[in-house]
């Protein structure tokens, strides 16, 4: 009896130890009862994939996404993409916007010690996409949300955007690469060090 109990207790302890200390376990998306998405937390410690820039000055003063688009993904979802070429259920991609420093030239660029160009200034909003084939089967398994394009603080929850606002453009442009503009993200074309 002593042996059996010892083995049982030890096995249980081992299982609990693994469960409790599981690293980087993805919390995944969190939804409210009415289907709104809760603002993802901790994403600035996720993997940075890339940062397109669409300056207001090059977009008639009003870029649809002003102006830096810094895109983050969790490590395990990035690894999955590397292996399978698509993202797993529950993947959350966060795009945090940042304005550029005030421009000196008509194109919005400015001179700095490192050269003429564009430099981040204030954080300016968040858009999120979530992969969930049951919830978002009508839009190629991804749901799109925006928490505002403005300075902090952001909205704490966001409703699903109409398909005509976000999903349609992803479907038209990148349906073949799991609805993600992988061509803009060097990491998805390279190995993570």
């Amino acid at each position, binding site marked *: 009896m002593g042996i059996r109990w010892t083995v049982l207790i030890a096995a249980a302890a081992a299982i609990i130890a693994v469960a409790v200390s599981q690293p980087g376990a993805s919390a995944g998306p969190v939804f409210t009862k009415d289907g709104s998405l809760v603002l993802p937390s901790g994403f600035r410690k996720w993997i940075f994939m890339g940062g397109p820039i669409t300056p207001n000055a090059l977009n008639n003063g009003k870029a649809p996404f002003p102006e830096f688009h810094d895109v983050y993904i969790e490590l395990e979802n990035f690894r999955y993409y590397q292996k399978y070429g698509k993202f797993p259920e529950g993947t959350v991609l966060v795009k945090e916007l940042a304005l550029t420093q005030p421009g000196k030239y008509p194109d919005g660029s400015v001179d700095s010690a*490192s*050269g003429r160009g564009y*430099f981040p200034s204030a954080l300016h909003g968040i858009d999120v996409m979530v992969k969930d084939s049951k919830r978002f089967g009508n839009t190629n398994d991804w749901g799109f949300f925006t928490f505002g394009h403005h300075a902090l603080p952001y909205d704490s929850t966001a409703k699903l955007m109409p398909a005509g606002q976000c999903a349609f453009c992803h479907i038209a442009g990148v349906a073949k690469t799991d609805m993600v503009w992988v061509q803009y993200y060097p990491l998805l074309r390279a190995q993570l060090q």
Partner: protein
Amino acid sequence: MQKKQHLTVTLTGIAAIGVFVALLCSAPVPAQTEPSAAVFTSDGRLKVPTGFRRWVFVGAPLTPNGLNNGKANFPEYHNVYIQAQNVDAYLKTGEFPEGTVIVKELTRLLNPTFPDGSRFEPSGHGFFNGEFNGIDATVKDSKRFAKTNGWGFFTFGHHPEPYAATAAESPAETCAGCHAANVAKTDMTWVQFYPLLHERTGQLSWDTPQSR
């Protein structure tokens, strides 16, 4: 009876090792406990930092070749990474701890169609990341680099991968001089270009933005 007790002790021991190994294998975020990512060779060269693409991204200035007479000093995106514990320390104290490594990885622009390097994409007219194009790194070590405000500067090449495996310290006038002239007051770092550092928003949980 004695044999049975012995077996019990043995099994308990094995189980204890099992638990220990399980804990070790699943230890959370080792970066939090690493003293420094800077590794030097015996002759003082810095080894190319590893794992930095998993560090915290703090910002990405862009100096397109097309806006810099075809030859930007840092072509063209400058993606800057810092380990989380060093971001924590900076936001708390206003300076970086000894051993801090800051990595700047360059990328070229994606298929420019205009002279400035920009192109049209569905999200608008702008600039998009092309291929990786080199690494510069700074290391804070007040003894080693006392002559240049406590920071040493290194470049592993401005070109596509693979990068150089090690780098000698760059001469003071090549890198440190410009940092000392412009950003000596902010610990030799251009924090004005890194929203996470200069906005100091949500200092207690900077990894998550403030919401209402």
